[in-house]
């Protein structure tokens, strides 16, 4: 649909903004033009629309050079949404949209053709489509930014183009209007199979809506292709000269980028003066073990409250006797939120879990091995005998452990895989401890039974300088495993002796 060949050109004849651009865009494609300010995106768009003449090379639209079209033919093929139109016409919305019919109306008697029913219907349809019919008789400059942009869109729609060019269509728009605008565009693209070329500044928005992207830098095309090229962190970082971190949208198979501010330091970058233990304030009461960290830790957890990957500052294990009215039988999640409220813990950055009964079952262990520092907090639930209920507890030969909740705090830098690795190490160490003590589990591995599983938390300082080097990984795994094994063993022994006594 659009074919750009060896395009060079700019505003002054002596200095080119664009250098040798080659680009092919298929019909029905949504292409996002990306690149830093001054990279030539707007210039390229101006040449695509024929406002600016190239010094060399060509732009072909639907097989014909853009500058060979007669103005009205061209406008019936290409519509353009300018970035913040420099003039604020004092026309009404309807009058603006009517201008979109310009290319479809004849010359000298155009004033009359505007009265034809088909023309009136088309203008009404465009206003309805862009949802601006209710502003029909309002003056353009009385509308908000988002509404104005919709009016321009309605005007473009009335033009019935096959190609739509947009220069930062969502500039200065809030989230709602940005998505609204792009949803409308996307619908248009799907329904009418129009080709869209848009300059977008939000890479994440571009990744979500565009089919492909063209990356410009200093007037040259750096890369063009599927949105997946946005996964290339080093390329994006190079083009925009910022450090980006690429992940994926949780619900869409699209890359999403994160930026980091220059000033990071909540924790010291070097290891020399840093002690992990000092960052944790552990508060033990009759009802809970509450750990607050001095700064948010990157946390990966399987817990009742605050599961998944996040940043957290508060880690709680509540002790709830089975006899208590508070014992969470049904809505444990909600119960935990209530308990947090009582302790005035900000629940949106907290991890919450619970074990049965008593506080003395918590073991805190700090361990350091060379560069690696680990703190482990293990809470165990009531151990009890085979078949024994809580009220009629009898001594028995085989003991079952109740829940074992483990929190591991690590000084280091973990990526997603490291977190998963740590989880595995913790689970293995826990089971080994249980095995070595010849304990079986009361809450598993009977998968049919509806019991709450053990909870696990890995929290990491995420100090950038601490990214695990190749040789360090096994050390970390070893230290975590050993610490967890030790702590779990002690915790189980403590509980057991408690029962025996």
């Amino acid at each position, binding site marked *: 649909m659009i074919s750009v060949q060896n395009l060079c050109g700019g505003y002054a004849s002596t200095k080119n903004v664009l250098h040798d651009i080659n680009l092919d865009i298929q019909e029905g494609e949504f292409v996002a033009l990306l690149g830093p300010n001054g990279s030539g995106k707007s210039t390229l768009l101006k040449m695509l629309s024929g406002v600016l003449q190239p010094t060399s090379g060509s732009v072909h639209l639907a097989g014909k050079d853009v500058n060979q079209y007669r103005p009205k033919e061209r406008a019936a093929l290409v519509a353009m949404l300018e970035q913040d139109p420099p003039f604020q016409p*004092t026309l009404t919305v309807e009058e603006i949209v009517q201008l979109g019919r310009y290319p479809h109306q004849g010359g000298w008697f155009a004033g009359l053709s505007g009265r034809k029913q088909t023309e009136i219907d088309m203008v009404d349809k465009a206003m309805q489509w862009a949802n601006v019919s209710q502003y029909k008789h309002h003056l353009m400059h009385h509308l908000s930014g988002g509404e104005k942009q919709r009016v321009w869109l309605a005007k473009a729609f009335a033009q019935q183009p096959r190609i739509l060019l947009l220069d930062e269509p969502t500039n200065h728009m809030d989230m709602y209007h940005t998505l609204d605008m792009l949803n409308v565009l996307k619908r248009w693209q799907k329904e009418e199979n129009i080709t869209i070329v848009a300059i977008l500044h939000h890479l994440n928005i571009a990744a979500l809506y565009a089919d492909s992207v063209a990356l410009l830098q200093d007037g040259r095309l750096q890369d063009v292709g599927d949105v997946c090229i946005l996964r290339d962190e080093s390329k994006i970082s190079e083009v925009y000269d910022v450090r980006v971190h690429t992940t994926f949208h949780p619900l869409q198979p699209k890359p999403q980028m994160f930026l980091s501010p220059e000033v990071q330091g909540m924790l010291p970058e070097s290891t020399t003066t840093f002690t992990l233990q000092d960052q944790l304030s552990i508060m033990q009461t009759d009802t809970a073990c509450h750990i607050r960290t001095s700064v948010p830790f990157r946390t990966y957890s399987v817990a009742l409250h605050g599961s998944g990957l996040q940043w957290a500052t508060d880690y709680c294990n509540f002790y709830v006797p089975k006899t208590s009215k508070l014992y969470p039988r049904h809505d444990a999640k909600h119960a935990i939120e209530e308990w947090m409220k009582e302790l005035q813990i900000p629940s949106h950055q907290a991890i919450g879990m619970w074990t049965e009964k008593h506080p003395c079952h918590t073991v805190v262990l700090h361990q350091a091995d060379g560069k690696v520092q680990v703190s482990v907090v293990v809470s165990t639930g009531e151990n009890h005998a085979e078949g024994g209920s809580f009220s009629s507890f009898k001594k028995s030969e085989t003991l079952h452990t109740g829940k074992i909740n483990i929190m591991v705090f690590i000084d280091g830098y973990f990526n997603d895989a490291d977190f998963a690795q740590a989880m595995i190490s913790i689970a293995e160490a826990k089971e080994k401890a249980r095995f070595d003590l010849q304990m079986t589990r009361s809450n598993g591995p009977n998968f049919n039974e509806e019991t709450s599983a053990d909870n696990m938390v890995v929290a990491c300082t995420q100090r950038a300088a601490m990214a695990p080097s190749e040789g360090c990984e096994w050390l970390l795994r070893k230290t975590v495993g050993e610490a967890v094994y030790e702590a779990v063993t002690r915790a189980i022994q403590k509980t057991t002796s408690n029962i025996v006594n």
Partner: protein
Amino acid sequence: MQKSFIQKYLLNKKGWIYAISGGFVLGASLLGLFISSVSYPVLDIIRVVFHHLFSIGYVEDVPRNMQLIIWEIRLPRIVLAFLVGAALSIAGAVFQALLRNPLADPYTIGISSGASLGAVIVIFFQLQWVLFGGLTLPIVAIGFGMLTLIIVLAMASLSGRNLQTETIILAGIMMSSFIGAVISLLIALSDANGLSQIVYWLMGSFRMRGWEHVQIFLPFFVVGCLLLLPFTRDMNAMALGDDGAHHVGMNVKRKKILLLSGAAILTGASVSVSGAIGFVGLVIPHFVRLLIGSNYKHIIPLSMWIGGGYLVLCDLLSRTVIVPQELPIGVITAIVGAPIFSIFLIKKRRAE
């Protein structure tokens, strides 16, 4: 249902504005016809006009000199005042649309200065009766006006792509200043008699204008209107900016030249027959905008009616205020118009 009601209301409102402005023109013309230093019976005046227009009725009992005054002096003067008022208002509206500048008026880009220079040269060198009899001055003035337009357009297109608006304005101002200086030079060099003639002419007047002036003005008026009236849609599109107009499919450069030429023809012809009358071309389009909005589909025809009617009224005042003296009409348009339109503007803006 509600929508169609609103639509009807708006249509009706526009209909009323058109009807009232039509009535305004008719009323102004009749007043201009009836009121003068010498008063005649209204019925006789109407009979004379009808007799000459449609060859009906019996006017033998009406004195010959009265017939002459009505038909040869009063009526052409009214017709010419209307046409000039209409032409200046249309031209003002077009310049404002084209240059996207609310301060633009028919004199902004120097056409009127050029026409004035032509007239001043004729007066200075006493050429009034040389070439075309009494019409030498208007013909030379129109020629100079068109020449100025060509020079301005040439300057603008030489200095940049696509006839940029700012360039046109600058070239026009340059031209105006230059020509203004030449006119001042000629004034400085003239004797007392020539001086008063030139100054009086520059202030504008319809004194001593007859059907031959209407005749020479009418073709330019028709051509100008033909070049402008069908293109109100393009004037609206100009509000999108040059690029915006390009994007909706307008041939920007060609339409600019067309509209500039149309407006320049109207301006040059007006200045040639009546001198440089100020205020009308600047303010009437704004007044119309306050009435009906910024759609040139309505601004152009309404400016034509209201501007024409307004100038007829002003001409009436200029010849009746201090009889038997006549005031320059350019004085009346502003002295009467400025307060009226200021009050209107304030009221309208406060109501918004």
